[in-house]
């Protein structure tokens, strides 16, 4: 049995990391300012949730509802973004990318050694003191509130008499709900006059200024909004995993992953990064190590005959060894190759290319063709 699509647990990560990639695209893809330190906001949201749960943030009890934590963490990140942006937006291009990278690395090394956050800050904090689960829904209304998490989450039995969901599936739907709401919010902002100005800045900033927009404030506003959603994504990540490490949150390669997702999905298309990350995770999972839900490796091992496996390819290297060497957990290589090919030949990404072919956003075009409208 070869599995091609990722399993549900991976899909949960696709959702929250996709949201982070979308927030990265919101600033970088729409204004053209490459925010290379975006992981700082993701990390802020993630650490905020865990620190409150461990009772380390004053004024907030350990049992504060998760939804409030997401919003508060987002606001903290937005304030941080205003501080960083106020300095950084005097620069542009490579310099902007580098100064944001600098800020995020300062935070990364700080968090990695600050024993306030955890007893062993290098490994990062985990939820210890909280008895309430992290639940998504309407706080205080038990029937409209479902806990997320693989072990601590709720499972649903017999919804509408027939549907049952395990904890991971519940997490998938509830986290998906938050991501969807955030996506619609960002979509709304992009299609507002404010969002149009961001695109104008990307296309020609001098002209946007000449028309009379104070581009600095627009960029700062967009940066704060983007940071807010990045922190929500980080909060979802922390809520689902119940522990974070500096490497998985503040490190600059986390931003690199968001960049990867944005380029593969489509830079400057808001939904694109989610598809990009889904694509990336699918490839990764398909090529992952045996025993981690990998698709290709177990399949080849099961279906290639003994004779094939022991055939010598070159210099004592058998087919079996070659498969182990080049497929066992080396998805990064193939993701990298795909990424480079995308940059070279499909610069608009998956969604961008589809839109170009259809001549507009997918939803509108499909509807138009179904109705049979003339252009």
């Amino acid at each position, binding site marked *: 049995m070869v599995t091609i699509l990722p399993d549900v647990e991976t899909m949960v990560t696709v959702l929250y990391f996709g949201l982070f990639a979308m927030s990265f695209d919101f600033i970088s893809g729409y204004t*053209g300012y*490459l925010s290379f330190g975006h992981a700082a906001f993701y990390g802020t949201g993630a650490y905020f949730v865990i620190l409150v749960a461990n009772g380390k943030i004053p004024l907030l009890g350990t049992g504060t509802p998760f939804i409030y934590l997401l919003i508060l963490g987002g606001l903290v990140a937005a304030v941080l973004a205003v501080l960083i942006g106020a*300095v*950084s937006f*005097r*620069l*542009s*291009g*490579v*310099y902007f*990318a*580098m*100064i944001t*990278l*600098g*800020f995020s*690395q*300062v935070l990364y*090394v*700080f968090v*990695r*050694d600050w024993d306030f956050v955890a007893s062993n800050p290098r490994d990062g904090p985990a939820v210890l003191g909280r008895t309430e689960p992290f639940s998504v829904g309407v706080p205080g209304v038990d029937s409209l509130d479902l806990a997320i998490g693989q072990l601590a989450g709720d499972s649903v039995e017999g919804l509408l008499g027939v549907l049952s969901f395990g904890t991971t599936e519940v997490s998938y739907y509830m986290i998906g709900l938050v991501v969807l709401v955030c996506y619609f919010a960002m979509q709304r902002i992009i299609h507002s006059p404010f969002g149009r100005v961001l695109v104008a800045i*990307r296309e*020609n*900033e001098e002209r946007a200024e000449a028309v009379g927009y104070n581009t600095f404030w627009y960029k700062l506003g967009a940066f704060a909004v983007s940071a807010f959603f990045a922190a929500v994504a980080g909060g979802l990540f922390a809520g689902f995993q119940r522990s974070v490490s500096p490497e998985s949150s503040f490190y*600059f*390669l986390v931003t*690199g992953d968001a*960049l*990867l997702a944005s*380029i593969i999905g489509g830079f400057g298309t808001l939904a694109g990064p989610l598809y990009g990350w889904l694509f990336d995770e699918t490839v990764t999972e398909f090529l992952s190590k045996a025993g981690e839900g990998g698709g290709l490796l177990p399949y080849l091992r099961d279906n290639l005959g003994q004779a094939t496996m022991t055939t010598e390819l070159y210099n004592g290297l058998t087919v079996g060894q070659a498969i182990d*060497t*080049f497929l066992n957990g*080396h998805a*990064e*290589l193939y*993701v*990298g*190759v795909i*990424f*480079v090919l995308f*940059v*070279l030949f499909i*610069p608009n990404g998956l969604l961008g290319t589809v839109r170009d072919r259809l001549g507009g956003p997918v939803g509108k075009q499909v509807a138009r063709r179904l109705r049979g409208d003339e252009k």
Partner: protein
Amino acid sequence: MEFASTLANLVVMAGFVDALGQFLRPENLASVVVDGLAKAAIYVMIAGGLTLIFGLMGVLNFAHGSMTMIGAYLGGLLMVFAVGGTSSGATRLLVFFLALAATFALLAGLGGVVEVGLIRRLYDRPPVYQILLTFGLTLILDELVRIAVLFYGMQPTSDWQAALGTKPWFLSESVDLGLISVSGLSLFEIVIGTATVAGLWAFLTRTRYGLIIRAGSEDAEMTEALGIDVRRVFTVVFALGAGVAGIAGTLLMWDPAWGASVPLAADTLLPAFVVVIIGGLGTFRGTVVAAVIVGMADAVTTWWFVNEIDFASLPEMTIFLILVMMLILRPQGLFGVEEVGGH
């Protein structure tokens, strides 16, 4: 409560003043300076190639760290193969210089191929695409090295001990310089770093080709109009930058603080960026000065961490704080002219 905290503060202050007194003693200061120069040599080696490439082509090469890492492994490979357990120090040193030359040549070849095969296609696109492409290249190179290293049964995440073991004995010893004793490796690094800087500087200012490179970085169109094939110059510069990264990697392979491992790519990339940006993008002089500043800051904060302040990432954090301060006060860097790149 008030009193207790004041008292605690006083005790801390007293300790701090004590440590400051320690720090300002000539032998400590001298050893910190030598340490700083050694670190500066490392930084200038890591960042030199990056500056060359950016100065001429405006390409911020994200794969530079990976190239340094590949250089470390290649240099280590040559050393491990050529040096037996009984080889004398002088033989090892000789082989090391051969390894330097070999990694330079190999990495320069890799750089040339990368430029012709990949980067050349992107000159007419926004500069962000070059960052993206080289970032993707980093993923590929790192993973290829990891596959190779695992295939030969080595640990890709920890330093390659066999390569560290090829160091001649006199580099592991301390050298007495009257007031202070300095590790031989630090002196060696300073020598190699100085030689690299001098060599590059001579190449850029004293040779005809260096003149062409500088002209190309000033004004590529005008250089083209004068009948010089700028595209070939680009290839040569990219090869040269990658070659310098290879030399830097080979040097790092002997330094226990760095060592050859796959994460070396990320560990060298960020300091290289910081040094290049502080110095001003694309100015070689700026990079040298910035490397000295960053190296000194690193050495001073390392001393403070060892002796007084209990915060392991203090040196690393200082480096990034210097970067941020620099960009706030003087975005174009110490010797930078104006912004390169942008929209």
